[in-house]
């Protein structure tokens, strides 16, 4: 039998609504009726709470702030008052209540309907927190973040993207964001979406125009579907990372490799040539062996000086000191030798040639000259002269205190190096003289720095 009495129908409905806490109060909030649902939701039986204030279901904090009174005032004024807040059960535990308070038509009190929505509330909270975390991450990392459709149409650009490209939010939506991609890279950029729809991962490298200087900056762009279940149809999230520095480094490395290869081959050529020249001026295989080994060591010393500096420039004092040290192992703190001059940096090629020349002078001094004689003295001095168009360094090698019996007759390797090679390749002016009391040599080299190789 379906009850026909409206009041009876209503009561049945209320009693059967066990998920809804439904109760009535008088105008002051004193409970006048309390259904089974209310008992389930709040933990109080009707007998316990009837005649007491329903305000007890509010949290102590909300009660202290007058939330129950406020709610009744709103219900009277507006005809209903939404009630979305934490409530407190009889046992002190709290739950998220979603309900409404309405004035009774009679004007004698209120009706309140409340549901426990804790789970939904928490799920919503978690979602909001997760969205907040995503938003925080997406808007604070240095990468440009975006949400996109799987065809490349963007649905959300991060503030970094907007700041970097100068495109507005709306100008970045759909396919419009391609405006900021280098025209030559747009095809690759779009083509990568075809691959992405097969592989489930977007990857490309392209140039992105920077605001406000309109310079194109290389970026690496990756994207993956937000939905981890394997469906590729939903939104994708992606990042664009500045790799301009990295690409610059890579191309710099390629240049350096080419340069290194060039230098190595050139060095081999020099070695080959030194071998040829030494062979020409050697009387025997034994003397070739000794001289060639000694010249190779001189080349090696300059190379190790060059290896210590990044810009391929060597200080003249280091060059002179290294060469002299190699020839005076028996007499390291020699008072026979004086070296003096201001700091001068020599480019690699000049250092190599000058190093070989100093080596020939030192070898000669040790064999026949000042370093071979107890009375012999050697001075190596240089100065920088401001000449136009480039400054020059003038180096003087003076041996004294010995008596040269006879100047060498044959035009040796060292002499050719100083008198011919230095003028040829360094535009140097040189003078080599065998004075009665020792060897004098003057070398004037222009020291325009080599422009950096591009």
């Amino acid at each position: 039998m379906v009850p026909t009495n409206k009041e009876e129908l209503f009561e049945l409905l209320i009693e059967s609504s066990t998920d809804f806490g439904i109760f009535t109060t008088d105008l002051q909030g004193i409970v006048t009726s309390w259904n089974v649902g209310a008992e389930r939701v709040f933990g109080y039986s009707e007998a316990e709470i009837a005649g007491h204030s329903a305000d007890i279901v509010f949290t102590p904090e909300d009660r202290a702030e007058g939330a129950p009174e406020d709610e009744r005032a709103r219900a009277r004024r507006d005809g209903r008052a939404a009630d979305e807040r934490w409530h407190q059960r009889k046992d002190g535990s709290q739950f998220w209540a979603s309900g409404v308070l309405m004035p009774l038509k009679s004007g004698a009190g209120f009706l309140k309907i409340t549901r426990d929505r804790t789970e939904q509330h928490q799920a919503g909270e978690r979602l909001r927190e997760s969205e907040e975390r995503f938003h925080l991450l997406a808007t604070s990392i240095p990468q440009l973040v975006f949400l996109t459709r799987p065809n490349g149409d963007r649905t959300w650009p991060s503030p970094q993207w907007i700041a970097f490209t100068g495109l507005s939010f709306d100008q970045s939506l759909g396919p419009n964001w391609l405006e900021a991609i280098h025209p030559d890279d747009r095809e690759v950029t779009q083509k990568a979406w075809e691959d992405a729809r097969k592989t489930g991962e977007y990857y490309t490298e392209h140039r992105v125009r920077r605001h406000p200087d309109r310079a194109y900056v290389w970026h690496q762009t990756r994207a993956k579907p937000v939905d981890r279940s394997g469906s590729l149809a939903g939104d994708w999230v992606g990042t664009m990372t500045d790799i301009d520095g990295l690409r610059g480094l890579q191309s710099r490395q390629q240049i350096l490799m080419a340069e290194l290869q060039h230098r190595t081959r050139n060095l081999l050529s020099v070695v080959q040539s030194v071998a040829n020249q030494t062979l020409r001026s050697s009387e025997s295989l034994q003397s070739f062996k000794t001289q060639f080994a000694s010249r190779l060591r001189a080349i090696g010393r300059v190379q190790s000086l060059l290896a210590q500096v990044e810009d391929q420039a060597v200080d003249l004092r280091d060059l002179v000191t290294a060469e002299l040290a190699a020839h005076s192992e028996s007499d390291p703190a020699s008072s026979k030798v004086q070296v003096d001059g201001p700091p001068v940096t020599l480019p690699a090629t000049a250092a190599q040639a000058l190093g070989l020349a100093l080596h020939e002078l030192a070898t000669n001094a040790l064999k026949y000259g000042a370093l071979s004689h107890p009375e012999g003295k050697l001075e190596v001095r240089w100065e920088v002269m401001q000449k136009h168009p480039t400054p020059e360094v003038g180096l003087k090698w003076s041996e004294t205190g010995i008596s040269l019996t006879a100047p060498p007759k044959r035009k040796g390797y060292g002499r050719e190096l100083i008198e011919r090679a230095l003028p040829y390749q360094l535009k140097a002016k040189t003078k080599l003289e065998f004075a009665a009391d020792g060897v004098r040599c003057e070398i004037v080299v222009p020291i325009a720095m080599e422009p950096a190789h591009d």
Partner: protein
Amino acid sequence: MTDELKGRRVLVVEDEYLLATDLAASLEGVGAEVVGPASSVKEALDLFSRDGRLDGAVLDINLQSDRVYPVADMLRSRGVPFIFTTGYDASAIPKCYSDVPRCPKPVDEQRLIRCLRQVTQHA
């Protein structure tokens, strides 16, 4: 075959003295008349403008402060065949010179002479 390049006027551009003299001696050894050697772009262009009659040239790509390409362009515009000697890999040489024969350093003199003879014959 000592007269493989007999009477040919060959410009040599090489900034390293020892290499330049070695190369000049080898070329003269096979009968060539060496113009230069020049150690810089400026010297090479000066030599060329003073005495433009050349049958061929051997150019070192990397000179101390610059590259030899202006000389190469000048020779090309006058139809003088030339070859490069270089320590660079092909990839480091501009594409427009990719048809220029190269002798890698250290130079194999026999190969260089063969190569030079070929390009001067074609001219």
